[in-house]
């Protein structure tokens, strides 16, 4: 399988209007833009749709 093992995901929203998703892969934090052309975002959405990942709300 070529699935990316995402340990957790959480929305991050900034006052400038930009929103990202912070994910943890192999103990490393990655900041992912909400861009469907980005491979990490596409994988996040695939796992969310499959019901295997939940994105936590921004604080």
């Amino acid at each position, binding site marked *: 399988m070529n699935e990316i093992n995402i340990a957790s995901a959480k929305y991050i929203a900034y006052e400038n209007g930009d929103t990202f998703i912070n994910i943890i892969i192999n103990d490393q*934090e990655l900041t992912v*833009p909400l861009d469907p*052309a980005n491979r990490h975002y596409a994988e996040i959405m695939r796992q969310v749709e499959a019901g295997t990942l939940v994105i936590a709300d921004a604080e």
Partner: protein
Amino acid sequence: MSNAREIAQLGSVPSGRRNLIINGAMQVAQRGTSFTADNVYTLDRWKSGDGSGGSPARTLSQEVLSLGQTDIPNGYYYLRHNQTSASTNGNSSLVQNIENVTQFDGNTVTLSFYAKANSAMTVNVRFIQDFGTGGTPSSDVTLTESVSIGTGWAKYTVTKTLGSLSGKTLGTDGIHTSFLSINIELTPTTTFTFDITHVQLEVGSVATEFEHRFYGEELALCQRYYFELKSSQYSYGENKHFNFHPEMRTAPTVTVLAGSATLNRNRVQFITFNSYTGDTRFSADAEL
């Protein structure tokens, strides 16, 4: 083959830049030179993909040829795939995804590469036309050819005529999400080593001499897909702005590799951090 004969066979093939593979000489290594995790990018643009059944333990590394060797004309670096334990759950592959499938509309293309293995083995070379993401893109189209690899360096070639794009539908996320995937599946489930370099994909039915590029040009080609700031030149502070040259394929995933920084703007041409410490290093990943 003589140069004259090779030129004659080329016929109307255009001159100039020929190789559609990036980092075919395995010289650019922004992420490092040794990798153990599966399903990750290794040397620039080269992914170690999992097979359909799982992920055999393996180490990939950048290696160098002996100076003065004559097996590979003007060769220096190669990529070694070392499968370190017998696999019971499938094989793996070396993958490069070439952006924009519309470059390959019914073309005859030739893939060539130098390779060897520690014992004779078979690889399955796949050409996969992927029509991108978003909406309802057409299904992948795959062509496959098996190649027997020997124990000494040799040049291998595979020629295929790719499918026409007539009647196909691209994904709505744009042509930059579509690609032609070159997938070299390594079939043994035992332990083995497989070495490869001078990978070239070109339009036409002839495998021409490998096209050498200067390190700087190859690095620039790679940095559309991955960029790593090795040594920060910024001071402490807020709103540090970093421009990408060339612009990246898509807004990148950003990872802080050392130090501390918080991303607050992210585009194909630039990113901006706040709360940036002076020793921060980061990567920006826009791979396919």
